[in-house]
């Protein structure tokens, strides 16, 4: 390094490097400048100066200098290395790898560069390269523990487990007998556990078990030891020993369900789907009875049998399970039992049991057959349970009656309001649900959970502004939702994006969805530092687990929802370009022209102000950066807070395709992935891609209404196109024709016939009927009336559930809303839409969408207003001040602060 320089400058050069490493950037710059005064074209100095400037956030200069440095000294590994580091700092890993490789061509044994390269290769999953680099490092420095471990891990990741084992054993061979020293025991134990997990993964079970036993004294983490041991025992079929181990593990933690499952497996009493013979049920019963005596504090031993018991035994067990929990007032009781509702018989028994308890509590004040009096709260919790029970069975009328009864009984119990809010949401009254959640929130302002729940409800009711004001009561700097973004609060961003999308504000919706996407990109980035960290820490099992997690990160629900949302936005944007968002449109059109003008002016002013603020802040931050070397506290101001720029994209479908690709790769088993792919590719006129989407839909669910829609639409579209002319077209046509022949639905049938047969097969299902009707209209636009009739003739059958207090019907609210919107928008039949609305208002009396007679939009005039007014906090929550002033609730210090914040936000609004 710096070899071409005379000794004074050579020393200065070393100083630059040292200053860079110790983050004394100003010192480094000074040294660089004094070399450059004498040797203005010294490549390595130019490069190092650039790298230093990069750390001071002066990017463009940095790139310029580094490139100039390289031009002046193409043969310098330093220049190439620096170039690589620069790219790396900008996450341009592919480019960085190229630079490192060039550097290594000049200096093949440079440890530092090799190490940097290996990190990038791990990050990019260039596994062959990773193995190669790790091998070089080990060859060069075989006395470093990290190099052995790194080489082994590289082979493991590159699917060569046996090689990894060999390397680890060779490494162990280099160790002294008294290894490890006290301060490395943990790490050594982790390494051994990693090796044993590799043996297990490679199917060398006996060797793994043997090794585990041999190294027992050196494995510090005893729980991991036991769990590893029992896993091997079970896999080896050593079930008796496995049983013993599981019983031991249970005595250590009787609340770990996986141990119970393992124990059942060892006893030959486990079925994935929970299907057991009556003989097996008898054995299981015995097993859990004995376990219950051993672990009388574990709730698992009492809960698990409810899954396999049936009939009378179930009834007895569930009643003795429920009683003490109602007495204790466990709020999660219903959610704990809710999986049992998938067995209809059990739901009926539960209804019977809890109604029995309710009756007895009301008449005698105690449980049936018991002389003891229950505390008054027991009845409240029974009502609380029943409310959720009826909600689950889609009988919101009864559910609301029960929860109201509970609230009258104990008006101070917050959980009751939360549940009432949820029931109202299910019943379709989003406004009332939000108001109810706000009431709950105001009963304990220091509790973020009820704040979050309230925010969620407000977003469901499309009260985005109010939701945001409420959410920021808990973000530290109170600086709008920046903190929610910084802390990666994705549920909020998704719910908010979905609300904006519903309201047609595509810019803001995209802003939120893309924020979630950005969080995932950052999470991918997060792994970088751990490639070296974990090799030192030796947490190798967890490290590999983390890499695998990263490899399927984009299949996570939040990402999927965000990508669905973004694609939808882009499709809408493509369909209606350059239109201002619908919300604004509506707002504007409602106003008289004079006010409209005012509003526009106001908006323009606000925009100008925001722009100016942004400029000032960026200047400030640049100034402070220049003067204070490293200061990162100043957050750059978002130049596009409302996502307006996101709407300016050249080609919305191209943007959509980016997210579609990730969906197709990571969420291939979701219908929506392919429905969206179909929509995008039809618009792009990429017929084969659209056909692929249809094929995937058929694979996932051939009977689904959306599958049917896409199938019919596709072949209808293809059939209506002019005959193929070019060779390429002809090939595509032939491929489509060939594929069509493989579809049973279409064999020897016209599309019209296929549609009729789909209708006939699924005529009892509303959504299928609606799809068939819609396709009839697509195929023959003159048959609109006939199509609408198909929908209107649908019958909402009552569900036959035993022991009902009232009727429950088959149709779901959201389906009925979808049908209404189809009548309105696709069929453009306003009369039919109105008839449908009136009909559904009967089925869903709480639905604000249908204007049912019990919904808040009808019952409370206060809510029957434009969004602007319903969003002012005062009207939504009349109880806020009531509760905080009458001292019903004890207020802690923290909540006083929050109350203060709340008041200021009320003043602002």
């Amino acid at each position, binding site marked *: 390094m710096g070899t071409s320089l005379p000794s004074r400058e050579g020393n200065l050069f070393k100083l630059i490097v040292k200053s860079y490493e110790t983050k004394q950037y100003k010192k480094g710059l000074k040294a660089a400048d004094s070399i450059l005064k004498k040797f203005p074209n010294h490549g390595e100095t130019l490069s190092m100066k650039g790298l230093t400037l990069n750390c001071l956030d002066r990017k463009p200069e940095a790139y310029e200098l580094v490139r100039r440095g390289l031009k002046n000294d193409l043969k310098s590994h330093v220049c190439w290395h620096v170039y690589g580091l620069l790219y790396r700092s900008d996450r341009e890993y592919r480019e960085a790898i190229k630079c490192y490789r060039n550097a290594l061509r000049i200096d093949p044994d440079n440890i530092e560069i090799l190490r940097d390269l290996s990190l990038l290769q791990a990050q990019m999953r260039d596994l062959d390269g990773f193995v190669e680099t790790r091998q070089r490092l080990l060859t060069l420095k075989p006395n470093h523990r990290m190099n052995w471990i790194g080489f082994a891990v590289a082979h493991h990741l590159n699917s060569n487990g046996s090689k990894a084992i060999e390397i680890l054993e060779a490494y162990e061979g280099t160790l002294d007998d008294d290894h490890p020293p006290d301060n490395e025991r*943990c790490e050594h*134990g982790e390494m051994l556990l990693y090796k044993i997990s590799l043996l297990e993964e490679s199917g060398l079970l006996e060797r793994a078990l043997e090794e585990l036993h041999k190294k027992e004294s050196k494995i510090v983490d005893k729980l991991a030891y036991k769990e590893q041991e029992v896993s091997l025992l079970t896999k080896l079929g050593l079930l008796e020993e496995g049983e013993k181990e599981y019983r031991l593990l249970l005595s250590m933690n009787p609340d770990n369900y996986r141990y119970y499952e393992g124990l059942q497996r060892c006893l030959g009493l486990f079925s994935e789907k929970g299907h057991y013979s009556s003989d097996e049920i008898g054995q299981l019963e015995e097993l859990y009875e004995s376990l219950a005596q051993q672990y009388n504090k574990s709730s698992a031993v009492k*809960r698990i049998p409810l899954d396999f018991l049936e009939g009378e035994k179930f009834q007895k067990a569930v009643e003795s399970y429920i009683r003490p929990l109602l007495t204790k007032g466990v709020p999660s009781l219903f959610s704990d039992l809710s999986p049992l509702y998938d067995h209809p018989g059990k739901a009926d028994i539960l209804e019977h049991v809890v109604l029995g308890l309710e009756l007895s509590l009301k008449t005698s004040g105690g449980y049936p057959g018991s002389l003891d009096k229950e505390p008054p709260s027991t009845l409240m919790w029974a009502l609380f349970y029943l409310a959720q029970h009826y909600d689950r069975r889609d009988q919101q009328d009864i559910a609301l009656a029960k929860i109201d009864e509970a609230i009258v009984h104990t008006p101070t119990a917050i959980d009751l309001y939360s549940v009432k809010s949820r029931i109202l949401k299910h019943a379709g009254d989003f406004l009332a649900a939000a108001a109810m959640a706000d009431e709950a929130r105001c009963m304990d302002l220091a509790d973020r959970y009820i704040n979050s729940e309230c925010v969620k409800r407000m977003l469901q009711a499309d009260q985005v502004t109010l939701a945001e004001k409420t959410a920021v009561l808990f973000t530290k700097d109170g600086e709008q939702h920046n903190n929610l973004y910084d802390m990666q609060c994705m549920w909020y961003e998704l719910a908010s994006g979905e609300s904006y999308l519903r309201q047609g504000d595509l810019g803001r919706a995209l802003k939120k969805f893309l924020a979630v996407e950005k969080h995932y990109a950052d999470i991918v980035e997060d792994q970088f530092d751990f490639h070296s960290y974990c090799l030192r820490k030796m947490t190798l099992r967890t490290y590999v687990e983390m890499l695998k997690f990263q490899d399927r990160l984009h299949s996570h629900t939040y990402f999927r929802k965000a990508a669905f949302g973004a694609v939808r936005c882009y499709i809408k944007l493509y369909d209606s370009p350059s239109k201002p968002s619908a919300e604004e449109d509506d707002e504007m059109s409602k106003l008289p022209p004079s006010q409209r003008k005012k509003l526009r002016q106001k908006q323009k002013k606000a925009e100008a102000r925001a722009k100016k603020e942004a400029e000032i802040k960026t200047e400030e931050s640049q100034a402070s950066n220049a003067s204070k070397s490293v200061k990162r506290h100043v957050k750059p101001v978002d130049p596009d807070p409302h996502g307006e720029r996101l709407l300016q994209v050249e080609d919305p479908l191209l943007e959509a395709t980016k997210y579609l690709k990730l969906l197709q790769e990571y969420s291939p088993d979701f219908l929506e992935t392919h429905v969206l792919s179909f929509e995008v590719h039809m618009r792009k006129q990429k017929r084969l891609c659209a056909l692929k989407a249809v094929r995937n839909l058929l694979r996932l669910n051939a009977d689904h209404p959306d599958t049917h829609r896409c199938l019919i639409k596709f072949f209808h579209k293809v059939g209506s196109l002019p005959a193929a002319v070019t060779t390429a077209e002809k090939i595509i046509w032939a491929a489509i024709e060939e594929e069509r022949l493989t579809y049973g639905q279409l064999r020897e049938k016209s599309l019209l016939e296929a549609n009729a047969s789909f209708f006939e097969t699924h005529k009892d299902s509303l959504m299928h009927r609606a799809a068939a009707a819609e396709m009839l209209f697509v195929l023959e636009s003159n048959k609109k009336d006939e199509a609408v009739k198909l929908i209107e003739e649908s019958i909402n059958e009552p569900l036959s559930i035993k022991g009902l207090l009232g009727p429950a019907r088959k149709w779901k609210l959201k389906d009925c809303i979808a049908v209404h919107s189809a009548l309105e928008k696709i069929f453009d039949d306003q009369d039919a839409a109105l008839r449908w609305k009136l009909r559904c208002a009967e089925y869903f009396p709480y639905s604000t969408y249908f204007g049912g007679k019990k919904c808040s939009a009808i019952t409370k005039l206060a809510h029957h207003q434009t969004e602007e007014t319903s969003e002012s906090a005062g009207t939504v929550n009349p109880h806020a001040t009531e509760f905080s002033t009458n001292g019903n609730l004890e207020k802690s210090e923290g909540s006083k602060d929050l109350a203060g914040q709340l008041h200021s936000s009320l003043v602002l609004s």
Partner: protein
Amino acid sequence: MVCIRKATVDDLLAMQACNLFCLPENYQMKYYFYHILSWPQLLYVAEDYNGKIVGYVLAKMEEESSECHGHITSLAVLRTHRKLGLATKLMTAAQNAMEQVYGAEYVSLHVRKSNRAAFNLYTETLGYKIHDVEAKYYADGEDAYDMRKQLKGKKHQHHHHHHHHHHHHHHHGGGCCSGEAKVEGKAGEPEAKAE
């Protein structure tokens, strides 16, 4: 009703979501990675019968200090899952692991002065004592109690080797006080929510 088990990397997103939904002190994903990749034994989750994460404990070892000790970074249980003793179970599991794997002498945590429910849980159920008060510890200016609990395994050891107790934490695990911590939490220190 609720399963208490060691957290895996796959639980981290749900843990972060649980934290964001119910606590005011939040952390970026990287901080969760940092915990699990440093001390994989010290993270526990409470998973309900539907497979949902309804509580967690995020804990670490203090590496820089001379006395080897554990620290509870964050503990949360969803409001809907109170009264099941989940916080106690999660805390106990993490404390046991600190003691067994790393030979921790004591475990520390911070709690808001105003959070009576959590304070009661720590003092009455779990045996923590106030060690100190940290003024304006939280971002909103509230003070924190710095609380500590002596781990019983250590007391036992004290009894036998009290003549060189300054060193004896090295006899156990020891791995806890080496290695360097690279990732720092973005938010302030933890807050716990009691049942």
